[in-house]
């Protein structure tokens, strides 16, 4: 009996160990193939997902046996940002390739030795394929540890069907004209604008505030103290937008709710980036073909500008393995090539910092390109200019401003407190 049980135990052990040995042999075979992990947010419902998936498949097919890119889906953007931050703090790159939203807060990542400095590996033709301004914005103290990939303009969206219903056929060209149009919309039973103070950045209202601030204070307004009269006036205008011309739930509302009001036709005016243009639920709205994209009527002396930002920069893990580094560079060259970017732009509506001949044919996406081209100058929005912490303070205090708990001057002073100069 004892011998039988020992024999059975031995056989079981062999059954367990054998697959491990076999595993090892399978893993040994393609040792020369370099596997690159890409923690990608462009998956799932993201408008860029299908094109990106196709490009990765194309690249892997062309480089079979040499380089293989494996996408690690990151559908939850907030969780993904946490992963990036936590990994870097723990002394580990989150993946071989990953993206960040480049702003003063994430610029801190450049201090890490974990990121590849593209300034050292970029050849001239590759560098020249990027928009020079975006490269400059992404360079910190001579280091280029992230490549500008996706850019965005943040214009105002107008539902012209709703405007026509209120008897308005043309977009207002002055701020007074805008408020007059809003009064007409209200009289017609349509809430003029989506606004919000919720989430960590009060996104929609933050964009409106940015338009007001730049118009009143100039494109370098973000270099000024936040107690500057331009910001105080911008705060008053934003408060007026929330209190008089928005939905009753604007205070505390998140981006989903703000966008939802516009998608449902409850509000006539909205603000967001070009990635929103590729959404299926937007395309399904009855007023989709009547959406007009434009800048905000000038509230101050600065006109013909557009609020823009670097929406996503691509980073790579630094490596002492030259072959691995070369593989990363090779893939990123492919991903950021004009044909690849054109493919992504075509299906997603997103805009990029890489020069291409692509011009969209879909009406709404075309408007973004036309508006960006028509702008004589651009300026950052508040979050891109001043970072996450200041934006959070902005969002938190905006609710108090809208409810009349604090004055515009107090609001600006509170936000100014968070700015490190």
């Amino acid at each position, binding site marked *: 009996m004892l011998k039988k049980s020992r024999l059975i135990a031995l056989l079981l052990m062999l059954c367990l160990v054998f697959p491990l040995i076999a595993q090892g042999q399978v893993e040994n075979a393609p040792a020369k193939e370099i596997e690159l992990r890409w923690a990608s947010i462009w998956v799932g419902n993201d408008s860029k997902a299908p094109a990106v998936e196709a490009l990765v498949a194309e690249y892997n097919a062309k480089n079979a046996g040499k380089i293989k890119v494996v996408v690690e889906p990151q559908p939850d953007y907030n969780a993904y940002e946490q992963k990036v*931050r936590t990994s*870097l*703090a723990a002394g580990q790159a989150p993946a071989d390739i990953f993206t960040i939203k480049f702003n003063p*807060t994430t610029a*801190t*990542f450049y*201090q*890490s030795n974990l990121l590849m400095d593209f300034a050292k590996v970029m050849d001239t033709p590759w560098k020249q394929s990027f928009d020079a301004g975006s490269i400059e914005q992404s360079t910190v103290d001579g280091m280029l540890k992230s490549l500008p990939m996706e850019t965005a303009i943040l214009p105002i969206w107008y539902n012209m069907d709703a405007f026509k219903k209120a008897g308005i056929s043309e977009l207002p060209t002055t701020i007074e004209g805008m408020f007059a149009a809003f009064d007409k919309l209200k009289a017609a039973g349509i809430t003029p604008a989506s606004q919000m*103070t*919720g*989430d*960590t950045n009060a996104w929609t209202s933050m964009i409106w505030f940015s338009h007001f601030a730049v118009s009143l204070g100039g494109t370098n307004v973000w270099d000024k103290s936040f107690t500057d009269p331009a910001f105080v006036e911008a705060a008053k205008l934003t408060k007026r937008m929330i209190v008089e011309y928005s*939905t*009753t*739930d*604007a*205070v*505390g*509302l998140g981006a989903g709710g703000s966008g939802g009001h516009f998608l449902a036709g409850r509000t006539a005016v909205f603000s967001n980036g070009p990635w929103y243009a590729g959404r299926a639920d937007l395309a399904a709205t009855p007023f989709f073909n009547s959406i007009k994209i434009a800048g905000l009527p000038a509230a101050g002396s600065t006109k013909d500008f557009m609020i823009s930002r670097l929406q996503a920069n691509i980073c790579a893990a630094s490596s002492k393995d030259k072959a691995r580094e070369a593989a990363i560079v090779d893939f990123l060259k492919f991903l950021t090539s004009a044909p690849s970017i054109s493919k992504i732009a075509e299906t997603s509506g997103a805009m990029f910092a890489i020069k291409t001949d692509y011009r969209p044919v879909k009406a709404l996406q075309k408007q973004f390109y036309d508006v960006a081209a028509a702008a004589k100058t651009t300026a950052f929005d508040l979050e891109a200019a001043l*970072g*996450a*912490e200041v934006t*959070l303070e902005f*969002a*938190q*205090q905006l*609710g*108090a401003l809208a*409810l009349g*708990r*604090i004055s515009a001057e107090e609001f600006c002073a509170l936000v100014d407190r968070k700015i490190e100069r």
Partner: protein
Amino acid sequence: MQAVGTQRSRVWGARVLFLLPVSILFFFFFIYPFLFTIYTSFTSWRGIGSMKFNGLANYTKLLGDPTFRKALGNNVIWALSQGFIQVPLACLVAMILVRKPHFWRSLRTIYYLPNVISTVALAMVWVAIYNVEGPLNAILGALFGAEKRNWLGNPDTALFAVIFQTVIYIGYFMIILLASAMNIPRSLYEAAEIDGASTFQQELNITLPMLRGSLITTMTLAMAYGMRHFESTFLMTGGGPAYATTTMGIDLYLKMDALRYSEASTAGVFLILMGTVVITVLRKIFGSSDPMSEMAQ
């Protein structure tokens, strides 16, 4: 003697062997992070690069930060609400259910059901309920003619709103108290009945004293949860509006978000200290004796 000594050392050896895996895990997942948190709270560190020792600067900054002080105050309110509203409610329901009224089993399940639903799902439901155009305003308007309120967008009502939707979920503590109440010997109640005690007097003089140990435990747990509250408030209001609902947990998270890791660690140390103080005070006030355990011995 030698055999006894060998036996003893074997027993100790076995104990050490059994405790070793959990001790290793406890060290790496609690002790080490705890010590690291304390260490980083005395440095200036943004998560990237080197740490620079800066003494008590983070503590001074934190205590002078009105947002942190607000968060601390909110956590005290949370702890008191959970300890002195949620637990007594749970106790009341347990005391009713222990008498096994009709459908007591169904009621027990209904009360516990919210505890098996994810906090995220519940928070999203309550966001919809509290919406200006939501059912709460509709019901209050229909019954009392009340005007519509933005419950989560108004600093005067937001904290009450988020606390309310947590405090009413008494299932977890109710189950603990119900289990203890069911172990109270029936003979005590029978004797009291014979002596002419009313139901109220029985509950006051028998049930409550016998539940003392469980009550202290549930209050300690409830207040500890209150001190480290984060999830539902973050999901519903993000700590706003104007930090009206912020808690130390949310403040810590947002500091981490802004790459202020050393300040986040300082907030973490405060959290631990406050929790320790609350539990110690509770034990001092209510003692740690448990009549049920004493009876069983």
